[in-house]
């Protein structure tokens, strides 16, 4: 089951980095772009204006649930067909 392993703010890249891990060490990175956007035309950067409405916890729940659902289906498949899980 994937769950929150660590999270931090990477100020240089402008990401809230959230690392999810399962028992086997598999990783998935959830990154929230909170720093700035770049204008596609001129490349100029401007700050995000929606940080107040972001819900990282909900994002973690959503992504973890999707990963775990997928993983559970795979494990069920492995059991059904007698596969060794590595």
């Amino acid at each position, binding site marked *: 089951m994937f769950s929150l392993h660590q999270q931090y703010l990477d100020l240089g890249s402008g*990401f809230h980095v959230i690392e999810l891990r399962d028992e086997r060490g598999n990783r*998935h990175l*959830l990154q929230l*772009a909170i720093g700035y956007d770049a204008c*596609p035309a001129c490349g100029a950067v401007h700050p995000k204006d929606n940080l107040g409405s972001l819900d990282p916890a909900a994002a973690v729940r959503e992504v973890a649930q999707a990963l775990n659902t997928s993983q559970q289906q795979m494990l069920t498949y492995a059991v059904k067909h007698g596969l060794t899980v590595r």
Partner: protein
Amino acid sequence: MALSVNLAQINSAARGNSDLRETLTSIHLALQSLYAQTGSAPIAKIDTRVASFTSPPAPSQLSVSGANGSFSVAITNSASAPVYHELSSSPVANFVSGVTVYPVSTNTSYVLPNPGATLYWRLRSSYNQQNWSSYLVQPGAVSSGLVSSAATGSNLSLNQSNYATVDSVAGGGTATVRVYGSGGAGTSWASILGSNSKVIPSGTIMNVAYAASGFVVWDGQKYQMKPQLAQTFPDTWVPVGKVSVIANASGLVLPVIHAVVTGGAIVAYQIVNPGNGLTSAPLLTITDSSGSGATATTVVSAGSVTQILPGSAGSGYSATPVVTASGGVSGGAAGGGGASGNNGGRLYANV
């Protein structure tokens, strides 16, 4: 005391310099004459076994070109007999410094790897490696150029490959960029550099603005999105792919399609609403409580569905099968935020 020197020594010392050889020979003969007149030295020829002088061949033709980090040397012999060549190069035109002399050989072609070098080239030839022609200098300097990964095989040490897919999907007011492997979203992917490979975790990058585009790169700890390709090339970073998050499809309206059923088969389709803002043909999925097998495709023009092309009519359909349109945005899911991008395995400029 007599000066003891013979013609073979003179030939060897003079090598290919005919002026020097003739001068030394003249001195030698003059001494012999002097010895004969004064009786101070033997007048007999000192070495009767001296070999006759072998004239060097005419200079061969030399052609040196540079590409992909190597010099290609082609030599055309002027004589049919085996000719020895001595190739040399120098970074300066007059060959006064930095001269590299390559091993003497009868080969007439060489490929000499030397990335990023600019050199002058010259050649001299000989039948016996003693008497050499004058140097033939190739006019102008030749640059080898830099090694391109496009010129090497896949996964050699200069090549970096990855098998990641980068795309984006709508995420409400912002887009979500996904990075994943061949197993689909949420699966890790392999990065191969030369003969080494490593597994990199999948990623979900949320809150990316619509209409943004950039290059996704793995910096060893996390993903980054950079607007310029060159920004993804620090030595320890792994370029992953290019993503173009299309504009927010706020004006996207998916079409509404009704099926016309006769005898359990779908014989026609009615465009109830042609939709709006479509940039690609939406897919049609036909579901029903009893029927199956019907297929149809759409034709889009100016952002709207203008035509339905029936495929199989199917069978067993009730009177009200449901036709659901999806997609409609090029490269992405319905609702906008679609994107495309992966490097197809091999990284060479076009990621």
